């Protein structure tokens, strides 16, 4: 049984995955000062390494067709241990939602509203996303296709507009860094953004797709998202060169360099608008997943009643615990990936392994 009644199509699911990765892709500062001009290479390796995880998620979805991640955990580990593990997942979902709210408010403050109080920006973000979450998954994901096309269009347009300042030489040398830097970069990218796709295990029961389509849409979504990420990093490095590792928002600096005669300048607003759209989408998904997890842990029948309460908690937490951009990047580089990867990749793998060994399936699958 799923808490949310609405169903979305497989394609909507795929576009949501793409949007989700694109939102993180634009904020590529996590690895920029670790792997510098070789970050584009790290994106490729990280995605190749992440591909088995995509199929693992697919296998888990197919094995427990009508259950989300929390329900799978409770089914496999029992109500007590299962709920304890679910609380850990809840903390994880709350953390990434908070991190993304911080990202959104940071870029809004940096680029548009420098003197607007943080609390107002967070409040607006929570109000809009709460509205979206209350409207349900279908409403939440209905515009994902449009966002993907819009974001992709702007990425391609920016590459064309920046063509005169692109230096291919900036992408070299390759394999000049110590091995541990590549490992660290790949590890971070496997946690942010690729590993974050674990949240889609909570949405999957509400998606109308067969077994084959599960793999297809998950893989296509992740691949197109990763390709957008790759293009973004490639563009930023080739434009910014050695300064790529310096900036909190490298893409914003790259966009500011667009100058097509005197008429087309200062079009970074395009970047900011699309980033805000994508981040609002991502926060909405994360917020939705957090609400679903709370509902599941406390066995609630309707999730809508707790949307505002969770939102209020998120707002307070984002304000109280918000770090500055350096602390945020350091947390994303050092602490978070180690804990997150456990929940994003290792734990789902354990779940799949146990379900295979003990032949645990959802009741629907068993009856087939």
């Amino acid at each position: 049984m799923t808490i949310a009644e609405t169903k979305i199509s497989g394609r909507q699911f795929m576009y949501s995955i793409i949007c989700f990765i694109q939102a993180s892709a634009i904020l590529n500062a996590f690895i920029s000062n670790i792997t510098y001009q070789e970050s584009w290479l790290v994106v490729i390796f990280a995605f190749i390494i992440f591909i088995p995880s995509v199929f693992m998620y697919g296998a888990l979805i197919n094995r427990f067709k009508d259950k989300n991640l929390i329900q799978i955990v409770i089914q496999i580990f029992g109500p007590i241990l299962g709920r304890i593990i679910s609380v850990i997942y809840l903390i994880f979902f709350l953390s990434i939602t908070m991190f993304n709210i911080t990202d959104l408010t940071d870029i809004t403050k940096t680029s548009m509203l420098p003197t607007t109080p943080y609390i107002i920006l967070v409040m607006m973000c929570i109000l809009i996303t709460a509205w979206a979450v209350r409207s349900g998954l279908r409403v939440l994901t209905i515009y994902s296709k449009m966002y993907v096309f819009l974001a992709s269009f702007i990425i391609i347009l920016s590459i064309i507009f920046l063509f005169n300042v692109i230096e291919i030489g900036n992408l070299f040398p390759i394999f000049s860094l110590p091995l541990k830097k590549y490992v660290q970069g790949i590890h971070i990218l496997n946690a942010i953004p690729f590993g974050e796709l674990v949240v889609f295990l909570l949405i999957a029961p509400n998606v109308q797709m067969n077994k084959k389509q599960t793999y297809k849409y998950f893989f296509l979504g992740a691949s197109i998202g990763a390709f957008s990420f790759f293009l973004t990093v490639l563009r930023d490095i080739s434009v910014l060169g050695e300064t790529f590792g310096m900036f909190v928002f490298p893409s914003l600096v790259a966009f500011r360099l667009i100058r097509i005669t005197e008429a087309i300048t200062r079009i970074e607003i395009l970047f900011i608008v699309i980033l805000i759209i994508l981040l609002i989408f991502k926060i909405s998904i994360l917020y939705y997943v957090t609400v679903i997890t709370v509902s599941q842990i406390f066995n609630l029948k309707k999730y809508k009643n707790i949307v505002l309460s969770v939102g209020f908690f998120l707002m307070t937490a984002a304000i109280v615990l918000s770090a500055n951009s350096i602390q945020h990047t350091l947390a994303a580089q050092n602490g978070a990936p180690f804990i997150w990867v456990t929940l994003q990749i290792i734990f789902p793998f354990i779940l799949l392994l146990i379900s295979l060994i003990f032949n645990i399936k959802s009741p629907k699958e068993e009856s087939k």
Partner: protein
Amino acid sequence: MKKIFILVFLLLCSLFLVGCWDAREINTLFIVTGIAIDKSEQEGFFDVSVIGIKTSPSRGGSQSSDDKDKKIVLKTTTRSIRDAFFHLNLNYDRTLYLQHNQIVIFGEDVAKDDLHRHLEFFVRSENSRMETLMLIVEGRADEVFKMDVKQEQNSTIYLFTHIQTISRRVKHYKISVLNFIANLLTEGFHSVIPIFAVNKNDDDDMPINMTGFAVFRNNKMIAKITDLEALGFVLLKGDVKNTNRTIISYDGMVSFDFDDIKTKKEIIYKDNYPIKIKITIEITARVEELLGFEKYSIQDLNRELHNIVQQEIINVATQTFKYFQELKVDVFGIGLSIYQHHPKKWNNLRNDWDNIFASLEVEINPKVVIKDYGQIVSIYNPGGVK
């Protein structure tokens, strides 16, 4: 109804909660178009001048006398750039607005001292833009603000337009804060910035002249290249749309336009150690002015001009390269090329690169195609001009 209420509520929120703090009215802003930084007479202090345009509500009718002098210059002396802006904001009725700043100008003394300490603010500040152009001025930078420019609203807009125009032909004339910082961070590469001189002659409507390039070793200006070396630098760098050179030989004088200059560099190694650099300069030349050369037939003239221009390129490029070798600054990115394509070799060369660069043997191979003689096919010499 409920949805409409929420929508109206959110719209009102965005109207009343957000706009208040970031409201910026044009009549409260001082729109900065240029910043000049000079050394102060006081040790450790700097003179920071900003120039802006006078903003006033638009009026119909003819231009009033007030509109003719639209520049305002503010000046302060502080230890840092941030201090300067703080001080100016405190003592001026409007808030300095940096988003439209076009140029940062450094006096020669500041450039010779330490440019990086002044750039930190421009890189860090959220109000500053990294594409802002940089240039060095011989003498004091604030002299630029005193210039009387007739074509534009103020001298920095004039300079900005000037650099934009000339950089369409030679892109190396345009160095932004981002370019310079990137060059500083790049291994095996030193940077140059265009250098200008203010024309003190009041009768001249060209108030400022570009004199060449300021050469930097890391963050300090160590030399200035003008005329011949400036041309040589442009030829050796390549990726140039158009430049020109007038050559005087025994037989006459010829002015060439050089189009689409492309440069290829090949490094010759011996035991993993670079010993020689072969530079191929591809140029499409056009004859723009030709005096003399009467004794040549059209076929011979073509051969002779070809030889003259080839020899000139070899001389200019070799002389310029040797000059930079004496300075021990690799502004051509030869070290960078090794770093990008052979990072392992570079690891062994990195620490001694300036000396290795200075000892490189250089071979210049010009490949010139004279494509155009203008609209006449014969040698123009109606009165037998000698």
